[in-house]
């Protein structure tokens, strides 16, 4: 992944204002999700049953929930978990998608036709339903969650990577590598995949919000992250149950969730613009 990180840093200085702004805000959010719990010296599971649910105030910025837990801290912790799930599941999708897509594109011929045919078939499957079945029937395991989500999200990645590999394959440096007698394995991993990184980085930033959305969807049904841990989806679910009496419990996590997704999408969009300009 050395190549990936170099490429990422080479893209960053060229980001437009929108991209820079959303990247800075995202970094700020992630940093504060680590700093504030220490600063306010409360944890996400610290209960105060006498206090119960109170409205937002100076001591509890987002109010507290029924068990007297501070919603601000819980939201920050939820952001951390959501991002963590988003990153891990995206990495799963990335590994499957890049391997599958580059193999298919590099091999070409009948193998390519069949591999892409399988992807086409998988596209028509009701995947959300499979994930729901998987999570209900095989326990709500944290790692299963990554794998289940990653297994859904790799399809588009595979298609995009395959298309890119097809065009890289026609480049002269690949012909030279072949003429030098390098093995296919070496060409694929040393020369083809590193040159995919631009497109992979762009698509990764666009996948992370999708994954966070799917995780929240599952958590909302009670199938995602399990208590006492909480993600933004769990907080929204808990908020919905009591929103008649304690509306702040749904409003704050909801707004933060939408805002985070928005920042991630804006960052992805502007990375996409940058890398398109570089190519075109």
């Amino acid at each position, binding site marked *: 992944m050395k190549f990936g990180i170099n490429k990422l840093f080479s893209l960053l200085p060229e980001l437009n204002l929108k991209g820079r702004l959303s990247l800075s805000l995202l970094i700020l959010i992630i940093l504060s999700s680590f700093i504030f719990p220490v600063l306010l010296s409360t944890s996400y599971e610290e209960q105060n049953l006498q206090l119960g649910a109170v409205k937002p105030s100076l001591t509890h910025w987002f109010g507290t929930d029924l068990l007297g837990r501070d919603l601000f801290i819980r939201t920050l912790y939820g952001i951390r978990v959501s991002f963590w799930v988003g990153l891990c599941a995206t990495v799963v999708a990335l590994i499957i998608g890049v391997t599958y897509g580059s193999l298919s594109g590099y091999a070409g011929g009948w193998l390519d036709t069949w591999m892409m045919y399988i992807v086409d078939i998988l596209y028509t499957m*009701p995947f959300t339903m499979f994930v729901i079945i998987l999570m209900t029937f095989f326990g709500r395991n944290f790692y299963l969650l990554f794998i289940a989500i990653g297994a859904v999200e790799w399809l588009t990645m595979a298609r995009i990577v395959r298309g890119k590999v097809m065009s890289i394959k026609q480049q002269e440096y690949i012909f030279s590598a072949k003429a030098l007698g390098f093995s296919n394995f070496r060409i694929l991993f040393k020369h083809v995949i590193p040159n995919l990184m631009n497109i992979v980085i762009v698509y990764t930033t666009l996948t992370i919000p999708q994954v966070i959305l799917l995780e929240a969807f599952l958590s909302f049904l009670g199938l995602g992250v399990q208590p006492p841990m909480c993600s933004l989806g769990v907080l929204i679910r808990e908020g919905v149950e009591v929103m008649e009496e304690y509306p702040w419990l749904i409003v704050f996590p909801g707004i933060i969730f939408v805002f985070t*997704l928005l920042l991630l999408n804006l960052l992805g969009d502007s990375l996409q613009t940058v890398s398109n300009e570089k190519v075109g």
Partner: protein
Amino acid sequence: MRRYIIRKLLLFIPVLLAIATLTFFLIRLAPGGPFDRDKNVPAEVQQSLERYYHLDEPLLKQYFRYLYGVVRFDFGPSFRKPGYTINEWILMRLPVSIELGVYSLIFALLIGLICGTVAAFYQNTWIDTILTSFAALGICIPAFVLGPILVLIFALHWEILPVAGWDFPQQKILPSISLGFMYSAYIARIIRSSIIEVLKQDYIRTAVAKGSSPTRILFIHALKGSLQPLVTFLGPAIAGLLTGSFIVETIFQIPGLGREFVEATFNRDYTMIIAIVLLYAVLILIFNLIVDIIQGYLDPRISYE
């Protein structure tokens, strides 16, 4: 064209077979069964229940028995709804989900098409900026955030719309908006960029040159030419509207198939789960096929060979 459709329809068979097989073994290999939750069931009752539903047979025999039923459109009795067959139950619940999906789709298309077209027409003005920002925000607001917040505002605070249910027209407004909103934002984005692309084409210049009015150019010439990406989007989107209804039906307590599916997985209602999965798979396949066909009409350059 006819050959293309027939070939596609024939391909449905292995796909559906694969889905049925995968679902069957996925839910059967998992621990737990449909009658585990009933406490204090005498052993004889448990046994006769299992015999009645053929759960005591070897798994493979059950699988082939099930497939044989599916081929004749007989999905068997429900495990958790005594006295109902799956077919009766689905016929009762499916129309509700379809109604919700259709309303949401109408809402999404109406808002999306209008916003997208207007934004493209006023490209790079403040109107465009507002509409594009609205769309960028809209794709980040899923139904499970929008639904509760709409309920909070319109049902609990202003008390002008009911909180839940599916009996009167007023009860259908909030669920349809919650489900359709995100799609309206996607449609607006797609239509905007597509129209901007189309407006650069030669035939639009011809229309301008012959003196057509801007409205006519926009809505007759440009919109029609820009529908193709929308159609591509709508195939998977309709599938999404169907599965998205899981959440909306849960929030608004709508007696549709989505909520039924979630309940069925929690209750291990084996036959119900497979039947709903297969039904949705068929719907997705059919919508994808329709999209393919419509694309051929919109762009005669696409070949079906």
